[in-house]
């Protein structure tokens, strides 16, 4: 049994990247649809945004210090871009039995404390995040509404300094929206960042 597990682990090392990318989306793909419960109890779906230019979809959560470090920046993104047609939608992908700080009730508390201006959805049963290939929190997927279809245009970090916003000299999400507004495909469509792994029961 031990050997099998080890062999599996070795195999995983070699196929991890292939597997993780084939499961998720990449820039240019159609965004998987979702209908998830918001902290106010109402169901929010991608279809609700058919009149928006796009959606800044962010997998984030309560417990992760990287997510917490970005909370104010996520609120600022929503305040700046919602009036321009690019609202933020946040999804908590974690299993609260693994990380109790990420329960639905705690989500409601945190959103109230911070004054979230955007929907904060709960990926109940963890069905949505694997379709996107989200691997950590926070993880941004910028979706552009193209004739009613949402196309993934950017995947990655919000900017290039998690610790100190004032020292960030690349604001990836803002750059991507600016490019799309100018009718171009974002030059940087994929970035990596350190984050908390998404908590799944073993």
């Amino acid at each position, binding site marked *: 049994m031990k050997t099998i*597990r080890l062999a599996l682990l070795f195999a995983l090392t070699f196929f991890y990247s292939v597997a993780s990318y084939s499961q998720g989306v990449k820039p240019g793909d159609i965004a998987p649809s979702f209908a998830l419960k918001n902290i106010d109890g109402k169901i929010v779906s991608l279809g609700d945004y058919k009149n928006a230019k796009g959606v800044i979809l962010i997998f984030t959560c309560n417990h*992760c210090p990287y997510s917490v470090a970005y909370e104010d920046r996520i609120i600022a993104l929503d305040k700046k871009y919602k009036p321009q047609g690019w609202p933020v939608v946040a999804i908590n992908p974690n299993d609260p039995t693994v990380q109790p700080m990420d329960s639905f009730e705690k989500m409601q508390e945190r959103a109230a404390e911070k004054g979230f201006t955007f929907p904060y959805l709960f990926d109940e049963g963890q069905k949505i995040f694997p379709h996107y290939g989200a691997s950590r929190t926070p993880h941004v997927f910028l979706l552009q509404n193209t004739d009613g279809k949402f196309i993934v245009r950017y995947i990655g970090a919000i900017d290039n300094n*998690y610790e100190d916003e004032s020292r960030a000299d690349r604001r990836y999400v803002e750059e991507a929206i600016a490019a799309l507004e100018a009718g171009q495909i974002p030059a940087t469509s994929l970035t990596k960042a350190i984050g908390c792994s998404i908590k799944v029961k073993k």
Partner: protein
Amino acid sequence: MYCLTFMKMILATWVFLLLIKSLDAADSRPPVPIITFENLQREIDKVDDTLRIFNFWATWCKPCVEEMPCFLEAGKTFEKQKVKLILVSLDFRKHIETRLLPFIEKNQISLPVWLLDAPDANAWIDRVSSQWSGSIPATLFVRKGERHFYETQFDCNELNEIIHQYLKP
């Protein structure tokens, strides 16, 4: 003339005492070097028959903290062999005093801990491994220029077997 020499001696003694005192203070808690990615890369790129293991972790990362005892144990198990374990902390710089040092003390971490101060992670994650999505825990094994990367939480048996495997000539 004598007076000047005497003054110099006093000054020299004073400087000496000050130096001893500062060394003492540095010794009283575990030193955590703050490194850039280039510092880390220099260590990763060393090509010899020492197995270097870089465990990327943080005090706030639950699975990292759970697997930490396995790394501490491996440090003891492979003490006499050519194995070098380095715990690369991704804690925030502002949390060194409040979280990282107390964690090291509380858990009696005897392995070297380096704080990687490189917030522009997109610039270096691929240079550790193109397979890395960026979540932690993650561990890189390097020996004789050969690299193996795992974005996973180890149990102690797995870790030991992997180290044995990579130590084979």
